[in-house]
């Protein structure tokens, strides 16, 4: 099972804008194993979505460029493939679903049309067979009356149904990896849970690896085997779910955990949040990027950017002072001076 399907090495993706170069992803590395459920967590703007888009090579040109790095998928470096070869991969071997199902489906075509389109492209089958596969896919995501739904337009479906359609579309060609970029953020809480359960079920059935991108630690806790926490375009911490949650090493992770509201805790006076705001990616702070918001910051944090170190097998952190920091108080949401 420890067979890597995707290996990203030192990925850097920059955008040139009027105000300067935005270093959206600045040296990110991780590995996803076959069938693994991998979570990428962080605030808005931390670069998690750009990472995913980089894997798919869907970064918007000409402003965005993958400056350096390797993306090894099934033995191939995706960054070295031609566009045509990449198109085979997209949708066929790596599929991606997006955040807002309302706008992610083309409003002027039926969902049947959009499903069949992918299937015909990647599975080399005729129209009627593709339709059968599509209906089956809709059934797999538990959409009632799939045959009728094929003729519906996206606006005729609810948000949750639309996201199911997106998942069906993504999984219809049996990809090795499914990238889900904030799939539940635009949905209400109940639907969120349903969708996550669905994805769990399907991923397990087909042994598809899933890269789940989200800012919601709650979602990640119930779904992922391993988690990568990103901050300002860089890795903060990386490890199994248990390690991240129980043996937290990075102050930022601790802050994230602390700011989660939990049902099982005593009521606090105030909601904890990490002080400060996410940094500019054009002129990021020198040294450790989290430094301006970190209560443990020292001079070395300003001068040296911490490199990711493996604290225990498979558990990496980018902080000068791990594992010596006492993060429990933060995680327990007690006010820290």
């Amino acid at each position, binding site marked *: 099972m420890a067979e890597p399907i995707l290996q990203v090495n030192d990925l850097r993706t920059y955008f040139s804008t009027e105000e300067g170069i935005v270093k959206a992803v600045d040296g990110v590395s991780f590995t996803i194993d076959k069938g693994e459920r991998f979570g990428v967590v962080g605030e808005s703007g931390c670069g998690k979505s750009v990472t995913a888009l980089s894997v798919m090579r*869907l970064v918007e040109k000409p402003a965005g460029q993958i400056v350096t790095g390797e993306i090894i998928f099934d033995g191939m470096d995706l960054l070295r493939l031609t566009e045509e070869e990449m*198109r*085979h991969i997209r949708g066929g071997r790596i*599929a991606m679903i997006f955040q807002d199902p309302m*706008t992610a*489906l083309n*409003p*002027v075509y039926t969902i049947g049309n959009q499903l069949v*389109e992918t299937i015909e*492209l990647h599975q080399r089958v005729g129209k009627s067979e593709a339709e059968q596969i599509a209906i089956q896919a809709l059934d797999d995501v538990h959409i009632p009356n799939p045959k009728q739904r094929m003729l519906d337009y996206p606006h005729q479906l609810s948000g949750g149904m639309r996201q199911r359609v997106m998942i069906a579309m993504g999984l219809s060609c049996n990809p090795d990896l499914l990238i889900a970029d904030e799939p539940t953020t635009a949905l209400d809480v109940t639907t969120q849970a349903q969708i996550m359960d669905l994805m769990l079920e399907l991923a397990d059935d087909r042994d598809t690896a899933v890269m789940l991108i989200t800012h919601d630690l709650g979602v990640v806790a119930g779904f992922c085997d391993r988690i990568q926490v990103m901050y300002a375009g860089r890795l903060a911490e990386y490890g199994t779910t248990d390690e991240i949650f129980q043996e937290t090493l990075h102050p930022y992770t601790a802050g994230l955990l602390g700011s989660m509201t939990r049902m099982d805790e005593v009521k606090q006076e105030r909601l904890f949040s990490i002080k400060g705001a996410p940094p500019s990616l054009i002129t990021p702070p020198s040294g450790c990027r989290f430094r301006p918001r970190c209560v443990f910051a020292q001079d070395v944090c300003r001068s040296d950017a911490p490199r990711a170190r493996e604290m225990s097998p498979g558990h990496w952190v980018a902080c000068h002072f791990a594992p010596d920091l006492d993060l429990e108080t933060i995680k327990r949401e007690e006010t820290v001076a």
Partner: protein
Amino acid sequence: MFNYVIRRLVYGLITVFALSIIVFWLLQSTGGDPLDRLKANPRITQETVRQMSEFYGLDQPVWRQYLTWLWGFVRLDWGRSFTGVDMVRDLVFERLGGTLRLMMTALGIAVLVGIPLGIYQALKQYSFFDQAGTFFSFVTFSTPIFVLGMLLQIIFALYLEKWTGVKFFWTSGMNSTNYSNLSFFAKIGDTLQHLVLPALSIALISIAGYSRYQRAAMLEVMHSDYLRTARAKGLSRRTVITKHALRNALIPIVTLVSLDIAGVIGGAVITETIFGWPGIGRLYIDAINLNNWPVVMAVVMSIAIMVVVMNLLADLTYGWLDPRVRYD
């Protein structure tokens, strides 16, 4: 769907009706009496004037005149022109064809040229073509149509003829006087020679507007989420553009064309004056200047009804294109 059409027609009717009242009132309020010229003529007696007055119903109170007119109008009895013996209806129908020919040609050119132009500009954003196109649009759009028309006339008819000795385009009338004697192909050529310049005057301005609009619409579609999904599915760039992008990008322009129809009509009115085109535009202006209000009313009504019908067609086209908007 049927209900929708009915509802729209009713709204249209109300508009046309309101318009008729406004215009009628305006025409009546003008001091000028349509029989002014007759009155000024010393050989016409008072008695004759009075008789004519009665004949045309001019001695009735305004609201009476309006109702009489309205009743006649809906029965297609549009009365008699004040400036001759022609029946208004005959006059209008005779000229309507000319204007329609001009309008349809202009709209056709504008749509077939303007829309692809805008799309191409969007695809090649920032290129020289794009920038030049935008500049051209702005300049054309800022040029009054009569200036455009006169310029075209002068450059392509007069000067071109002066330099080459060949008459490429005619500048007045729909067809030459020897039209009926021409062969079939010569007839087509002659028609085109007369049609091109006036139609172009109208079309150029619409092209400027359409291309700008279409460019913006296309750009918006290019940055849409569903296009990103399409790419993520591994579709080729061509499929993404022609299948996913285009269909969406062409929807908004229908609205603009629909709104532009009234503008094209206005353009036709002016162009007909410049190019001596036999259409209802010229008829209209002449009639206004002579206070020939039955003709004016008839033309205004015709125009208004045309606009209502065309707008309805445009709306239905929109509904056909955009499944989110199926009328119930």
